[in-house]
């Protein structure tokens, strides 16, 4: 696979090459960044912190129509997922998250919606040279330049961008803009390595995960769960904003005679999440729900798919309204082991 250098002066031209495609990039909205479609003539920059809402929506939209039907009718109309999407500036943690949840969507049955979308998306990642305050990706198997799940990785070297093609999709796309770039003779790779090492040093928060997956079952009734969940509001913030959270609900929505069956993000922190029709709820309070959130990520998922379902993006910490901090919870778990 090739590694190229792109002079920043050529950046607008590079974007121009992508312009014919359905291109999405982070854009500022108030004090937060979010992924928005790049309109003609716009040149998104790559100078930003991570987006507030993770880009999992490109593969796992918050609301996905499974099929449409008419009340009283027998015809089912399935949507066609054939939009090519190019996502520019996705962070390594978020790209890794897609690979992690893919394991679930490929388990027992292949999920047609998820896999069709994944097929159609090209992910152009951006190395994190300025990690956020609550990033802890190296603790959970990632890193500021992790390439897992990416098609291309861009690193900002100052004067130049260093672009690495990581898959055939990425190679093809870089090829289309080949005349704007020069091949890297090794200097780019070296400069990148230095930047990445510096970035890793800037990461302050760490979790020592050793022993946690095996130890969690033994802590089922530990008083720590009551302690760490006492202030939880039971909102969807930590899960909706988590790139690896993948729970969904399926509901029918009817307007007049038009109906559709759709699936939408759900959250294990919601009260009705495991509510049975009988009125019984196996996770009756926020203590059990918080315990589930941690166990799902650091125990069940590891047990089933051999990988921790948390990429250390820090979003759940940044945005929890009451400072419930997963790093702190895991520290307490460790202590209780």
């Amino acid at each position, binding site marked *: 696979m090739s590694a190229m250098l792109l002079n920043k002066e050529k950046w607008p031209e590079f974007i121009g090459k992508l312009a014919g495609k359905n291109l999405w990039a982070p854009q500022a*909205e*108030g*004090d*937060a960044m*979010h992924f928005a479609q790049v309109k003609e003539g716009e040149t998104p920059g790559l100078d930003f912190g991570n987006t*507030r*809402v993770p880009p999992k929506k490109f593969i796992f939209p*918050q*609301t996905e129509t499974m099929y449409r039907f008419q009340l009283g009718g027998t015809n089912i109309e399935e949507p066609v997922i054939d939009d090519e999407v190019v996502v520019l500036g996705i962070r390594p943690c978020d790209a890794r998250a897609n690979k992690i949840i893919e394991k679930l969507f490929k388990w027992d049955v292949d999920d047609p919606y998820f896999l069709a979308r994944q097929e159609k998306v090209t992910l152009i990642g951006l190395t994190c040279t300025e990690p956020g*305050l*609550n990033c802890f990706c190296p603790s959970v198997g990632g890193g500021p330049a992790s390439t897992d799940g990416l098609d291309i990785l861009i690193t900002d070297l100052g004067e130049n961008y260093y672009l690495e093609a990581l898959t055939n999709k990425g190679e093809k796309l870089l090829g289309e803009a080949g005349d704007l770039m020069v091949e890297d003779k090794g200097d780019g790779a070296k400069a990148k390595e230095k930047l990445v090492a510096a970035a890793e040093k800037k990461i*302050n*928060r760490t979790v020592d995960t050793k022993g946690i997956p095996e130890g969690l079952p033994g802590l089922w009734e530990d008083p720590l769960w009551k302690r760490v969940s*006492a*202030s939880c*509001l*039971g*909102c*969807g*913030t930590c899960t*909706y*904003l988590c790139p690896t959270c993948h729970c969904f*609900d399926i*509901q029918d*929505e009817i307007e007049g005679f038009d109906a559709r069956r*759709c699936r*939408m993000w759900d*959250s294990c922190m*919601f*009260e*009705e999440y495991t509510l049975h029709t009988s009125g019984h709820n196996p996770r*009756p*309070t*926020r203590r059990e729900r918080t315990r589930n959130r941690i166990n799902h990520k650091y125990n069940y998922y590891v047990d089933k798919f051999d990988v921790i379902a948390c990429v250390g993006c820090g979003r759940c*910490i940044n*945005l929890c*309204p*009451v*400072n*419930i*901090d997963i*790093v*702190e919870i895991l520290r307490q778990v460790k202590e209780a082991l």
Partner: protein
Amino acid sequence: MDIEQLRKIASEVVARDDVKCLIGWKKGSYGYRIAPAFVEDTEETADLIFSPLCTANLATYLTLVEKLPVPRGQEPDTRKVALMVKGCDSRAVTQLIVEKGISREDVVVIGCPCPGVVDAKLLAEKYPETEEAAEVKWNGDGFLLIRGGEEIKIARDEVLAEKCRLCRYPNPVISDLMLGEPVKPWDVPEDSGVVEIEEKSIQERWSYWLEEFDKCIRCYSCRNVCPLCYCQDCILDRLNPTWINRAVNFSENTAYNISRAFHLAGRCIECGECERVCPANIPLGKLNRKLAREVREKYGFEPGIDPEGEPFQASYKPDDPEDFIL
């Protein structure tokens, strides 16, 4: 703020036989975060603080309790909850009493007269957060930021939360115990900070909210944090019939946000929590304060002031001229 006095009062309160726990604030895990503290014994009172970072309205926990069925032969725990409240928070407690969501005897109110809190986002923008849990103090007319051995003086207007700029009740309206002396209320703009939106044309207003509601991810953080959103059976969670579809799009998001705002008309006590927690940065405060202003000006009613008062949405006057409908 006399922290020793706080800890003394708190120790006495948690030592009482009729008190289950005290809910207050403590330092958070990093930066400008504070965390709600659930204190059950006197030792833990050492964690308690009251500072300009104590934005969270803890009154929400009064109705957030999820009760498990009490095993046969055991008695339910009916002891009181002690709660630290600022002026705005005390209005939430009062409104809950008015609505009979809680009864006065269920709670020990520890009033904290409040010179105004900071907007932590604004503070972090100007003075970037670090991993260290920083401290902020009231300092004359402004604030003092202490971190890494360094002390930074900050002018009040620079980082004061918007809700505090508009606050008419900085002193707790009810309390059993009071921390320190009442503060002198400050002049507030009459318009509740919404005149800018009121002056827009209907079309402009619609497109303004269209853009805002479009960002909503329906995490329901605003509902869950709100001390006055405590319906056991919320229409949002109803599936049969479905009042508001779970689908996230402009139409459903608008239905959600408008229903919530209307349900809080004459009940919202302007604590600003909904706006603070919204991960999509939707200016929910503007919406709620607009309705609060309408209710205040058209009906002369303000929620959460008098525990003996009437609940606005459930009051009816036979001689109502009915010359408009809210």
